[in-house]
């Protein structure tokens, strides 16, 4: 029915007209970046290249990826421009990006330990950002709290209910933070850290912008955010501040040309402009405040903006293994959601019970209570799968739509895996809470 309809309308359209209505100079870019940022760069580009007219389409990263996919058959967009490297990986794997072969002269291969450009040449990094902790100064003062400066600080019991974060399945940059800690601290210790931090969460927000928003309004006091959210909030006058922890990663924000673009020359001109020195300098605009990837640009940097190429304190502590992160990408996202996002209430209750029990027995030497607490801690920290399993391709296969050939062994489905993990963590959290409450009652 729909096919027939589609066919007849298409035939009608063909017989009516067959010329392209798109003006040669229109370049369409799909982006998740705010208008504050895109308008500055758009103006600079159109001044440098008056022959092109840049049309900016603003969509969230996930809608943007889906949009590019769905319009591919009759492409009306030229470029995709967003932070999260994983969104570009998805597009690249589906063959939706163009290998543009543009010059990246003057731009190093790596920032910190993360590659700036896609090694296969499908997308380019144009700015760097790092993750850190943002806090609301009024909130902290009113609650008598000192801001946390390291990830481990966020585990302290005095921060219970004061922290916000997004989820790695919602935001590629959040994913990177989670993975950075996992690689920096090791699989088991890293996850344990995340669970103790998450025990202090006020909420896991659905959008990554929900975190700076929550801190700005004072809905929660501290948030785990990407640096420019904090810089631009501060620049807008909100009473907030920001710190990079020692274990952090600098990540490039990216741009890529869509496969089969309507205006290839225009798209290439824009990407080249963005990577050129005048383009890189636009990032110093107060509304943008991102770190350029071209080290020579820093000569003109405004006061207070760190230079990651000379300042080794940022993002140097972790050797980030991109292949490892890629191999278990969706396993990490899903584990975080199963253990934290969807069971936040259970986790919080368990963590709080342990915190209170520890507080009560802080000075005492009640061996029995301490044993109970230790057991409760172990239950909370227990992982449903090991690091080896997380890197097993059969596991990752459950999360991606790679159709198997006939005869291949079919692994478990995502829903089955998640149900098993869920059953385990719910039981563990409940038991841990029970043990901790028993210890507190002693």
């Amino acid at each position, binding site marked *: *029915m*729909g096919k027939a309809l*589609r066919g007849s*309308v*298409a035939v009608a*359209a063909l017989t009516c*007209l067959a010329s392209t209505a798109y003006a040669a100079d229109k370049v369409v870019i799909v982006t998740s*970046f*705010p*208008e*504050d940022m895109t308008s500055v760069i758009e103006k600079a580009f159109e001044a440098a290249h008056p022959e092109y007219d840049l*049309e900016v*389409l*603003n969509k969230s990263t*996930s809608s943007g990826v*889906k*949009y590019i996919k*769905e*319009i591919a058959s*009759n492409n009306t967009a030229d470029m995709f421009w967003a932070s999260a490297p*994983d*969104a570009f*990986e998805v597009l690249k794997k589906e063959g939706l990006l163009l290998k543009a072969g543009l010059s990246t002269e003057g731009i190093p291969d790596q920032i910190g330990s993360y590659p700036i450009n896609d090694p296969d040449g499908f997308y380019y990094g144009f700015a760097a950002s790092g993750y850190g902790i943002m806090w*609301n100064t*009024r*909130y902290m003062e009113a609650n008598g709290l000192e801001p946390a400066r390291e990830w481990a600080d966020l585990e302290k019991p005095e921060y219970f209910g004061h922290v916000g974060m997004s989820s790695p*399945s*919602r935001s*590629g940059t959040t994913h990177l933070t989670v993975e950075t800690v996992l690689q920096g601290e090791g699989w088991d210790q890293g996850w344990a850290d995340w669970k103790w931090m998450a025990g202090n969460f*006020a*909420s896991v927000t*659905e959008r990554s*912008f929900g975190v*700076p*928003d929550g801190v*700005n*309004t*004072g*809905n*929660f006091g501290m948030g785990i955010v990407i640096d420019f*959210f904090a810089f*631009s909030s501060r620049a*807008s*006058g*909100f009473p907030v501040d920001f710190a990079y922890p020692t274990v952090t990663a600098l990540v490039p924000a990216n741009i890529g040309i869509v496969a089969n673009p309507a205006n290839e020359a225009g798209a290439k001109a824009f990407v080249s402009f963005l990577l050129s020195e005048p383009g890189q300098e636009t990032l110093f605009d107060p*509304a943008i405040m991102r770190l350029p990837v071209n080290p020579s640009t820093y000569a003109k940097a405004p006061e207070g903006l760190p230079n990651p190429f000379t300042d080794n304190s940022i993002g140097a502590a972790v050797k980030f293994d991109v292949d490892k992160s890629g191999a278990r*990408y969706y396993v990490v*996202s899903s584990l975080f*959601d199963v253990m934290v*996002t*969807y069971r936040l209430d259970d986790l919080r209750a368990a963590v709080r019970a342990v915190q209170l029990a520890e507080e009560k027995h802080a000075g005492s030497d009640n061996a029995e209570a301490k044993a109970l607490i230790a057991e409760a801690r172990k239950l909370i920290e227990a992982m449903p799968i090991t690091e080896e399993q997380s890197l097993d391709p059969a596991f990752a296969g459950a*999360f991606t739509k790679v159709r*198997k050939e006939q005869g291949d062994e*079919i692994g478990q*489905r*995502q*829903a*089955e895996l*998640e149900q098993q993990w*869920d059953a385990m963590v719910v039981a563990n959290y409940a038991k841990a809470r029970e043990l901790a409450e028993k210890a507190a009652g002693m």
Partner: protein
Amino acid sequence: MSHRPATGTGRQTLADRLPAFLFPRLSPIALTGVFIAIFLIGFLIFPVLQVIHVAFQNPATGALTLQNFGDFFATALFRESFVNSFYVSAMSVVVATVIALPLAYITTRFNFGGSALIQSLGFIPLIMPPFVGAVAMQLIFGRNGTINLLLRQHLGFTIPFMEGLNGVILVQSIHYFPFILINLSASLRNIDRSMEEAAQNLGAHGLRLFRRVVFPLATPGYVAGAALVFIKVFDDLGTPLLLNVNNMLAPQAYLRITSVGISDPMGYVISVILVAFSILSLWASFLVMRGKDYATVQKGGGGLAKRDLAPREKVLAYGVVMFILAVVLSPHIGLFLLSIGTIWSFAPLPDGYTLANYARMWEASQDYVVNTVLYAGLAATLDVLIGTAIAYIVLRTGIAGRKWLDYLATAALAVPGVVLGIGYLRTFQDVNVPFLDKPLASWWVIIALALTIRRLPYALRACMAALQQVSLALEEAAESLGATKLRSIRKIVVPLMTGGILAGFVTSFATAAVELSATIMLVSSDSDSPLAYGIYLFMQTPSGRGAGAALGMLAVVIVALGTVLSQIIIERDKKLRTTGREH
């Protein structure tokens, strides 16, 4: 006639010679039904199936299977989510009724100053612009919002308004009670005064009169509103996401569908279950109404008698109304403060006040306003046309499968906007618009069509309720006097439904004006984008919060003006009717 031999007359057309079932003699009404069915299949069912068919596929092999549904019921998280969604929806209906009933009763039963104002203001909660509405509510009711900050400062305790399932119930009730208010008020206005007078003659008065006569006669409106609230809350994802409550069905579906790169079929499985459950709830609401007749014949009285309030009653009534309005309008008071505030952070009120937000908003938004009025107006007009037609077909004809028109249209409530958006791109990206040579999916009309589909259930419920109160006898009288079916519809049925149709128009228009989830998938150029998209653009940055709120206020004002206008039309219409002039 097709059995007649073809030889002889020679005057037979081709159609006459073919078997009759190829050319069934359709009445114009049946034909309309067929067109609506085609429209719904083309713009709702087919695009949505394009997306959710993966719910019926084995994720590994692509073979058809029901295994995913097995997984759904085997997963503790989903079972819990289902129970949570059900509990929240049912409780929201209860709380929304508590809010709506006094407002509807007081404004329709008594001579109460400013009834029209209350009817309009009571409607505004429905217009909650995306994101800014959320921020405004957090600033008022949040854990560190105005109320809790003041409570902590002066009384040393806080109330978790916006936390957990109870928070969802509170926000949903505040947001959606207008569905009940509008439909119930329309129904109350349509009740024949003679019914009330008869009851009074027999000695009924006060609450007993209301409980035994008035409310039962208004049931179609109440059930229409309550069913909408129930289904809408069950399917709504905005509020749970705003409160970061994940363990309900709709947010689970949304989170799984929109996560980048993971192809988890469970999101689509949940969508299918949401659609099925919505249709089931609708069917259940039909059961409530079955076998009863709500129509009243005589329209001469022009609705219930209104009486004056005694002074003490007046104080009480004003008190109740003011309290309810203060609660339900507080998000918009917050929105207003946000729009004129400078910085508002962890404080009961903004630090300072400015008009700069409005200036910044106005610079960029004229296009948005024009587009929004165009899209939402087009969508709402189509909605009431289709809604009236479906209501007539379902209630007045015996066409086979007519109920399915209703089910199909209502299923749209349960389809997440993002699913509809992706479905449209998938279906219409390859269809070029004649003369324009661009994909139908990137033509602005597609946004209006998406809004039409998404808001059709609202208009449909209102039209159904209105028609249920019009007696068949009036049509029969008209037809026995020689009017054709179409003429009696045009001259008798539709005029008598005016109140309900307008209620439907306003609901569809207002909610379409702030829709974002499908729109954001479909916006393909800045100049075609509606207001909600403009709000989204502003809300992407910390500095755009005030300007976004200002644009949100503009949306509220536009829609409120539309509502007041239709209230005036309803009132004038009623006056015309009571004075007995030609309509």
